[in-house]
């Protein structure tokens, strides 16, 4: 089998396993996995910018929250139905990523981290400032009726756990294969090369700025898709998702799972959720245990879980 065939089959297998889990898992774990899948999409979006293009952003909470509020506010205040609300979320993410990227990409390294962080903080503070509309930290609870996704011949209600699970899986599948295609395309290869040696790429005639901006916009739109899906599937949009914590978390998930691997973000998000879930059932000091586990993982698997698997056993892993 060629490496392309292997990669595609592996990704298909994972989707099939996730599909099967819907019927095998008890209700509680199915709920966790629905959430993990949506947040994995957030991590996958972050991974395109951070893992592949080497853009260490500390402001991706803004893009997730743009999707969350783009969908949440239009549903709550304008009475939009789910599909246009989803589109509003994606549009908000794209516009913010374009503007923030255009300005932030004039900097690099530490300055880029600070500028993206400042953008996200400004966005977070704005969600609190306009508390009349957003209800700040308390957040908006979206009415069930407005969250139905209408398909030709069917009307899917995301408050039904199995439906919610399948919608989350559908989103994950679309984004996973989109990214698999992107990172193997000439655009994806150019991004990795820009990350490795920007000056050389410039002298090969590549417009480095345009490539980075494109990466950031696609990354922002994917994160916004995760945010909009979160609002629609879980019916809640709160300012907490715009806070710094949600800029750090995708970085953590991606580092754990493996930066610049297509499957790493899913592995990392799943690992973190269960690390917290399992340890918190034994002790109050679960963050201490999780912290130590993270330190050990970073010490022994500096390339993350999927990165280590690729380095040791499966060199064809995308």
């Amino acid at each position, binding site marked *: 089998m060629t490496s392309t065939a292997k990669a595609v089959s592996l990704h298909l297998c994972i989707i099939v396993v996730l599909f099967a889990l819907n019927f095998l898992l008890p209700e509680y774990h199915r709920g966790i996995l629905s959430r993990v899948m949506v947040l994995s999409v957030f991590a996958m979006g972050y991974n395109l910018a951070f893992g592949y293009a080497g853009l260490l952003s500390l402001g991706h909470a803004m893009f997730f929250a743009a999707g969350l509020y783009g969908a949440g506010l239009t549903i709550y205040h304008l009475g939009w139905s789910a599909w246009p609300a989803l589109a509003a979320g994606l549009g908000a993410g794209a516009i913010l990523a374009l503007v923030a990227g255009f300005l932030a990409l004039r900097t690099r390294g530490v300055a880029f981290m600070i500028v993206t962080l400042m953008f996200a903080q400004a966005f977070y503070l704005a969600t609190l400032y306009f508390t009349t509309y957003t209800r700040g930290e308390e957040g908006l609870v979206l009415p069930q009726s407005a969250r139905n996704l209408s398909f030709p011949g069917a009307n899917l209600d995301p408050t039904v756990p199995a439906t919610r699970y399948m919608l989350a899986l559908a989103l994950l599948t679309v984004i996973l294969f989109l990214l698999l295609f992107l990172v193997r395309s000439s655009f994806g*290869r*150019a991004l990795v090369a820009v990350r490795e040696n920007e000056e050389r*790429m410039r*002298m090969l*005639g590549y417009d480095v700025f345009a490539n980075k901006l494109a990466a950031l916009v696609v990354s922002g739109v994917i994160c916004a898709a995760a945010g909009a899906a979160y609002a629609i599937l879980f019916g809640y949009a709160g300012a907490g998702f715009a806070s710094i914590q949600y800029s750090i978390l995708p970085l953590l998930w991606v580092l754990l799972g493996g930066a610049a691997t297509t499957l790493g973000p899913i592995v990392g998000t799943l690992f973190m959720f269960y690390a917290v879930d399992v340890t918190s059932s034994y002790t109050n000091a679960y963050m201490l245990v999780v912290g130590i586990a993270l330190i050990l993982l970073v010490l022994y698997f500096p390339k993350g879980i999927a990165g280590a698997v690729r380095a040791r056993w499966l060199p064809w892993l995308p």
Partner: protein
Amino acid sequence: MAAMATVMPLLATQGLSRFFGGLKAVDHVDFSLSKGEVRALIGPNGAGKTTLVSLICGRIPASSGRVFLEGRDISRLPAHKRVRAGIAYTFQITSIFANLSVLDNVALAAQRRLSDEQSSSHRSLEQNSREALEQVGLAPYAQMRAGNLSYGHQRLVEIAMGLALKPRLLILDEPTQGLSDGEIESFIALIGKIGAATVLLIEHNMDVVMALAHRITVMDQGHILAEGTPDEIRANGDVQRAYLGSSS
């Protein structure tokens, strides 16, 4: 009428300057290059050779002056657009993608050119990359990780990337630095074979210069000191004092 064809140089600079504070690294240089020639740019360390070619290919902005490529003013174009216009630059300090295979390194160059020509099929990309590798004799190493190659071979990857761009002007910045005698010989043979491209070569090794250059430009302290055929330069008293040393 015959003279008309030679009126338009491939590359020309007008009063090109770059000042670093009070230091005049390149000071009002008027320089021109005809199509198809191999030109060597020589001069003592700090003469401004690398700065001059960096101004030509746009890696650093000029303090003043203009650059023309086939009569078109490219002074305001950023570096990547000058590369697309046909100026390729290979780095003095080897600057390849160590983690990628040799073939992928060259493919990055070929891919960008082919995407301009709207013919980026997977096959033509692979074919173009392999052609460039064969030109420099690296075809057997195509699948090797570039960082694992010997230093001499890494220099050749650098040149293959330049060739894969199919440039109109290929700028080589000290390409033979750190190469063994045998490698230098094959480098001379390689540049002799390229033929079609115009080559601007910064070089310290006089054997390489004398073997390859049709004409030589000598720089000293940011100025062009002399220009001429290898024999004229060898006979030039100023050059001998400034560069070759007064004893010769």
